[in-house]
């Protein structure tokens, strides 16, 4: 306590400022890009160093297709950004795209990844007359166009009943599922223009939230085939269901599948995450231990618990964040996880807590894994989320 008071006095920061700085550091909704910029990311948090392995394969195998799998809040986006950063340091251009910022994924059609990649390359190349027609073809492919019955094409809606709208792959899609050959050829020419002296790779984020693995297959695989043919190495996040998919053809579409399982709470990695962000030392050591334990090794939950415990401490007028503040936050998190559970899911959670085995091919188990109520530490090691376990009184097992 005196140490905190002395350092606060020395630095001139008020209690409010210290907590404000703390809340800024422990913000679960901050973009991973911002977290990287702010220096809040530990690049060696996972001993497997996934980003280096992924980047190495991108460098060496131009036709490679790699998938990254992990549950909610496991750090997938952070790993992808580290891949991009690592490749940039090797002089390789890697376009990171979070697809939901470009397209409504719920309405997208095959080809949209090719279209988005083409638009990125066009932006990078700047204005090039030689590619004007190709750029136009890509825009029509993505957003649709008006076509006269004579097949003449317009971008904007004409006031004439002889025109009909041909949908694009990310707007009012009414075209077939086959990727338009015009768009594909346009992409090839754009790619060739970009590639003069440069390497290009693609990092795709945002597709992991598709619950049905067949939707992922239908939407993404046609584009992956094109990228492979054109020797554009691709890294993309994939739905967690791919990890347990019985259909081997799905897994065989990727040269390598990297699985981000949760971080063991008995190591020192998560403690280092807390220490990196809690520069004012607001968390007592016992509170920090409780935050780590309550998170189950999920980084986003670690940050959320630290934030919520900080909130409890702040509103109670405390100078530091104590164990009891964390206990309240863990309970609230557990209650949140307990919402919407069916009786069968409760039974499955009890069975998991009793080490009776987990069958990932069971759709209810997949939902529990997907929503992080069950945490996977390895292909054979599963546990109920500790916050949920406390609330369900399963921690007695």
């Amino acid at each position, binding site marked *: 306590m005196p140490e905190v008071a002395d350092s606060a006095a020395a630095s001139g920061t008020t209690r409010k400022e210290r907590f404000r700085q703390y809340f800024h550091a422990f913000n679960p909704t901050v973009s991973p890009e911002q977290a990287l910029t702010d220096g809040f990311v530990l690049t060696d948090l996972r001993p497997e160093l996934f980003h280096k392995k992924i980047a190495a394969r991108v460098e060496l195998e131009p036709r490679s297709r790699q998938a990254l799998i992990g549950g909610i809040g496991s750090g997938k986006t952070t790993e992808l950004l580290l891949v991009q950063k690592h490749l940039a340091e090797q002089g390789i251009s890697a376009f990171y795209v979070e697809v*939901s910022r470009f397209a409504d994924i719920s309405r997208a059609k095959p080809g949209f990844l090719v279209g988005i990649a083409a638009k990125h390359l066009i932006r990078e190349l700047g204005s090039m007359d030689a590619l004007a027609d190709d750029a136009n073809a890509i825009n029509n492919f993505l957003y649709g166009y008006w076509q006269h019955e004579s097949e003449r094409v317009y971008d904007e809606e004409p006031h004439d009943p002889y025109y009909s709208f041909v949908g694009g792959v990310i707007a009012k899609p009414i075209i077939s599922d086959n990727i338009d050959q015009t768009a594909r050829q346009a992409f090839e020419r754009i790619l060739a223009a970009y590639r003069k002296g440069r390497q290009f790779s693609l990092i795709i984020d945002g597709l992991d939230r598709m619950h049905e693995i067949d939707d992922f297959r239908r939407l993404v695989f046609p584009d992956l085939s094109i990228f492979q043919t054109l020797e554009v190495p691709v890294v993309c996040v994939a739905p967690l269901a791919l990890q347990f998919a019985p259909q081997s053809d799905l897994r065989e579409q990727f040269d390598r599948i990297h699985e981000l399982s949760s971080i063991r709470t008995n190591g020192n990695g998560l403690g280092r995450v807390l220490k990196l962000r809690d520069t004012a030392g607001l968390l007592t050591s016992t509170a920090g231990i409780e935050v780590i334990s309550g998170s189950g090794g999920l980084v986003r939950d670690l940050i959320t618990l630290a934030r919520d415990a900080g909130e409890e401490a702040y509103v109670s007028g405390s100078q530091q964040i104590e164990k009891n503040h964390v206990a309240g936050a863990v309970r609230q998190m557990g209650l949140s996880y307990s919402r919407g*559970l069916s009786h069968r899911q409760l039974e499955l959670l009890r069975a998991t807590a009793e080490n009776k085995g987990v069958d990932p091919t069971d759709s209810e188990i997949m939902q529990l894994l997907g929503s992080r109520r069950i945490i996977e530490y390895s292909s054979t090691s599963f546990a109920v989320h500790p916050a949920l376990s406390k609330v369900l009184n399963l921690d007695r097992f």
Partner: protein
Amino acid sequence: MIGSEPQLFEVVRRGGNRAPGSWIGIVSLTEPDEILINEIRSEAETQFNPRLLAIDIRETEPFALAREMNKLDNEWVLLHGFEHWTPARWHAAELNRNSWLRGGLNWFLLSPAAVSNIARYAPNVKSLIGSYLVIGPDQSQMSAEECETRLTQLREHYGMSDDQIIAAAENHELEMTPHMVEWLILSDRGDLV
């Protein structure tokens, strides 16, 4: 939130002190209405004086909503109308979740029905909201008599007592339907929501 439901000023205080870009979930006992929205706006202005925009999203597709929100700078955005969202719309929100990330605070004003649906259909959205801030019955514009009348209706309809419902919730044997969430909040046990 620990223990009994916080007053509205505490809910706004907690949420308003969060870092820019945070997502804050407020659970209201009844379907959020203009009175509640104005109360939140008034409380927010008293404490923080932000630029706050309330958006009724009942008829809005999630991706279209993202486009509108991203035109705003660091305003606070209060989203309401989620009780009208279908599972398909929640699924679309789940897929496009990252398109909602922005610099200002996003407040999600939720009814008990919406809380159930988020848990079931949009766990990724839920993971960014985190724990809920629950507004007690007196902040949902219900008088003591109205609360008691409503409790009587629930007891008679389900043939159960308040203690039985609370015990079931504490033992996690209670399916959290909108009626059950409402019952717990009326019984001053919104901490179990």
